[in-house]
């Protein structure tokens, strides 16, 4: 049973620390089931936005809502519990774990076995683990990692590792997926595969996707809507075509840059 997906609304979010204004009254809305790209030159505040959305940074002012639920000010694990998943630009995979174990971490908020149940290997814990491992296998197959489940994740090529990271976020069964540069550093082949996975996630799972990306080709192809940031401010937004021709955007990327 799926509940009606909700829009992610960002309203006037400002983030200030140590005298620096990283985000200045940024607003945008991610329609449910769409791919929304956040682009901008380096230092524009894209990662900061993600950190605010996932609760890692606290917004100085403004709000973030998922549907009617307010996300601002919540601890990261609570936001995760409400259905927001994210990947990391620099990969946050456990250094020694297998792919399957890495993916299972994503199931954390959906499982319940605690210290006692796991330590005593109670049947409830083993049953739960088996059930969720099955689901992990399904998700791994969906993104094309089913053959690598037993491999140590750190031994995989970079592109596959990013895919594991994506898979782990998917294992959280999120409503909103935040992808931080999902195809950076990949070969052309890997890029195509990941782009297909992202499109597949949107189309068949109906998950809203917010994507920070530099590769304009992918953005133009995949994104339903784009928000452009520069110096912490939203300077343009709309469909990829609209944004591509917006003079403010062109100037931000090519114009007065140091």
């Amino acid at each position, binding site marked *: 049973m799926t509940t009606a997906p909700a829009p992610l609304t960002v309203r006037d979010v400002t983030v200030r620390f140590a005298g620096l204004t990283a985000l200045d009254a940024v607003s945008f809305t991610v329609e449910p089931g769409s791919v929304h790209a956040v682009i901008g030159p380096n230092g524009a505040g894209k990662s900061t936005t993600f950190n605010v959305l*996932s*609760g*890692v940074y606290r917004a100085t002012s403004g709000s973030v809502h998922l549907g009617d639920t307010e996300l601002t000010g919540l*601890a*990261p*694990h609570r*936001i*995760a*519990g409400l259905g927001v*998943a*994210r990947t*990391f630009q620099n990969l*946050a995979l*456990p*250094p*020694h*774990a*297998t*792919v*399957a*174990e890495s993916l*299972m*971490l*994503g199931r*954390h*908020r959906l*499982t*319940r*076995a*605690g*210290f006692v*149940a*796991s*330590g*005593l*290997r109670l049947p409830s*814990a083993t049953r*739960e*683990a088996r059930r969720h*491992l099955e689901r992990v*296998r399904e998700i791994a197959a969906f993104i094309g990692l*089913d*053959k690598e*489940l*037993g*491999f*140590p994740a750190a031994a995989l090529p970079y592109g596959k590792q990013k895919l594991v990271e994506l898979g*782990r976020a998917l294992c*959280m069964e999120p409503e909103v997926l935040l992808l931080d540069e999902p195809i950076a550093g990949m070969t052309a082949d890997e890029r195509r595969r990941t782009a297909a996975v992202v499109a597949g996630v949107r189309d068949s799972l109906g998950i809203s996707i917010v994507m920070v990306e530099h590769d304009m080709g992918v953005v133009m192809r995949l994104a339903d809507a784009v928000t452009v940031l520069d110096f912490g401010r939203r300077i343009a937004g709309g469909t990829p075509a609209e944004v591509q021709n917006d003079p403010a955007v062109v100037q931000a990327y090519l114009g007065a840059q140091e």
Partner: protein
Amino acid sequence: MSETTKDTAAPAPAGAFAGPSLTGRLRRPAPYLWLAGSVLLLLFPFYLDRFWLQAGLFAMAAAIGAIGLNLLTGSTGQLSMGHAFFLAVGAYGYCVLGGGSSTENGHALTGLGLPTWLAAVLAVLLAGAAGGLFSPIAGRLSGAYLGIATLALIFIGQHVLFNAGSLTGGFNGRPVPPLSLFGFTFDDAEVVVAAVPFQSSEKLWYLGLAALLASGLFARGVLRGRPGRALNAIRDHRIAAGVMGVPVARYRAGVFVLSSMYAGLAGVLLALVFQRTVPEYFGMILSLEYLAMIVIGGLGSVAGAVIGAAFVSLLPQVLTHYSDSLPLVSAPGTGGIAPGEASRYLYGAAVVAVVLFLPGGIARLKNPGEKKK
């Protein structure tokens, strides 16, 4: 699903978690070594003298404590220098709960006189509760801040142990009531088994083995399951862990409590073996020894904790026993290096050597690169 697994070929997709199949396992030497080792361990009390049995019991208690510290520091990355405090809570808690009120050398000692098996259980829970009291700190801090904050526990502990005379016996310590379980008392009253006289050391041996086995299995279960993944995530990528739904502070506090209970259990066992509690023992040096144990054995590994504990705790015993035949080492009091000092040199050097040359500790020697739990 077809199982065409060979032991050393590509990892079986069906067994993403499981290791090689049962027939695969039976073809290797490891299980037979385990069997032989277990049989030896069970037979030791029939052949070893008290000195070695006591040394072995110290090692078992140390192993239980080390497994606990490993959960906290090795698997979750929370440096703690306060382990000795919880050992003291366990040891002294058992004495206070299980001992009767008495007077020793003119000092009154209070005791609740509970049945000793209950006192032992409650002492472990008490250690956990003490860990729980510290959780506002243990949950929110990490790294050096936590390490030095836990140092405060040591000093608080020492202060209480030396001052709360009626509870702790001050600098004299307390006698330890022998454990009684189902009418069987683990004391020095001789019981003859297979023509071998069994005293406290022999009786406690099996209790110790059982406790160690249970502790090890429980820890393995935790590490292999959902909590273990969460703990490792906290160690490796704290922020990512939170973002993935792991309530970081709660898990940090939880593992701190669990680790404290392991220390409490180790403390109870130590008290039973020593038959006397002594306040100086539970100082900072003991905490440092436990840290050395888990590093030498291998952080994040239950087996490693046991190996490291055996190494560090047996070293002084071995050196003392053979001090005559070893160069440099001599009996305490005469010239040369005392066994206690010599063992400290050795395990201090071992810590440095292991970290620099054997990352992953001794436990990872067997399977370099493979993740060991």
